[in-house]
């Protein structure tokens, strides 16, 4: 993995034309995620109908890796059951930190384009921030951060 091959077509495309970008009229849950190391922040709003993520949107200021990750995340979890979203969150975190064996069964599908971040330690948090923020929103935590006690790198994986 080199630093350039992370910037694949699909990631560049989602950065340029992010899906589900903006705000929702009706949202049951929301959270703001911060990466204080770079000043990036991301707002995620979602609407749960029963146990299903009926709608989701995000907006914020971030790098291409973070924005593409958020965009692809929203398309992946939209319409899914909350528990399925939590499974994806867990698997994505494991993939980004290099603890997931991609040759074994997983549910990440196209999200594996982000697997390369595991070799770029300074960029892991960029990719994880949206997932970390989604996890917070689903658990009714309104602000979260990639640092200190909220650090997703140190958070117990699958602690939902």
């Amino acid at each position, binding site marked *: 993995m*080199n*630093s*350039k091959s*992370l*910037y694949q077509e699909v990631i*560049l495309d989602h*950065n*340029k034309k992010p899906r589900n970008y903006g705000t929702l009229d009706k949202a049951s849950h929301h959270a703001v995620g911060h990466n204080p*190391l*770079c*000043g*990036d922040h991301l707002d995620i709003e979602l609407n749960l109908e029963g146990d299903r993520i009926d709608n989701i949107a995000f907006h914020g*200021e*971030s*790098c*291409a*890796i973070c924005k593409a990750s958020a965009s692809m995340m929203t398309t992946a979890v939209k319409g899914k059951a909350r528990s399925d979203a939590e499974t994806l969150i867990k698997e994505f975190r494991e993939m980004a930190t290099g603890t997931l064996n991609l040759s074994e069964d997983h549910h990440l599908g196209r999200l594996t384009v982000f697997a390369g971040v595991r070799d*770029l330690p*300074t*960029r892991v948090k*960029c990719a994880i921030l949206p997932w970390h923020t989604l996890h917070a929103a689903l658990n009714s935590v309104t602000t979260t951060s990639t640092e200190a006690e909220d650090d997703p790198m140190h958070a117990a994986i699958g602690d939902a």
Partner: protein
Amino acid sequence: MKLIDSALKPEFTSMFDVEHIRADFPILKLQVEGKPLVYLDNAASSQMPQQVIDRLVRYQTSEHANINRGVHYLSETATAEYEGSRRKLQHFINAREDREVIFTSGTTDSINLVMHGYGRKYIRAGDEIILTTLEHHSNIVPWQMLAEEKGAKIRVVPISDAGELLVDEYKKLFNARTKFVGVMHVSNALGTVNPVKEMIAFAHSRGVPVLVDGAQGAPHMAVDVQDLDCDFYAFSGHKLCGPTGIGVLYGKAELLERMQPFKGGGDMILSVTFEKTTYNSIPHKFEAGTPPIAAAIGLGAAVDYLSAIGLDTISAYELKLLNYATEQISNLPGVRIIGTAARKTAVISFVMEGVHPHDIGTLLNHEGVAVRTGHHCVQPVMLRLKVPATTRASFAFYNTMAEVDTFISGIRTVQKVFT
């Protein structure tokens, strides 16, 4: 006294020969992602020439022992070399006396020493401390901690859109409650060279002492603390081709003598009983515990190395690099330089339309180019200039015009990826 150890002299004669200089720096031969390293993160930390590496090896292989207490050969040797290094630093900044040079762990430690040693003794409730918008967090946070503890107030000198201090506004901030000024010599994020001499003279006309954060000044220009007339000057070894973990606080002897110690422990005392401790004289009063002896001696070798080239020669060459890089980057569409002061060191901070600095940094790394991205520990500057983050290329005297070209073509590559 012999100032320059001839063995430490860079191997060149009259003209500035950058290829000759580069041969002294083993790390510059490195390949990154299959490309030759282009190291443009010198404002964060500079690289070390073989002469300094060799000096550290020599110390560690034949001179090391603890200093100041042993009567044996090695302890006497180490003490002599450590104190010899202090004198080298004294001459490097033209301090009056060697006891005005205190070894610290770096600029941050130096500033904290002044905050604890001077600030906590002399700053009282209602007093005001003047800082500038350009300050690094390390020259903001200690003073905020002090202000909170004492009920003092921080006043901030504004900057122009070009990133220059508004000196007239600075002068207006003074009043009877003003007790201290902290100002950086050179901006780490923008490269702005501040008119510190004029600012110091004005503060002194009001009887106010001034600390200069020289972390980005000392490596790039000849510093004369007597000419500046600053009360304190703080800088780091690792931005000066020396080791990490070592830095200097220069202070006027008269002020240092009045200050209270920052850290208590061995070496900073004359006598200790449980009833009363008598402190040692300066500089030892501020050097509690075993210092980083090897790093201090390494820093002495580093300033020998820089002095042999000449700080004026270094400044002149780096200015050429700055002018060339500024001209080249100005020709790129969609790229905007942040920080366009009339007087700058060789630092170029920039933003690129539609591309986040972190993406620029990662993609430049692929070209072998090392730059810094983010807020550079100056969030107030970013806020003032309305940019969340920048990409910063910071040059040193061992960088070349060809490396500027590689950097520029790297930016073009980033632009291609993002169109």
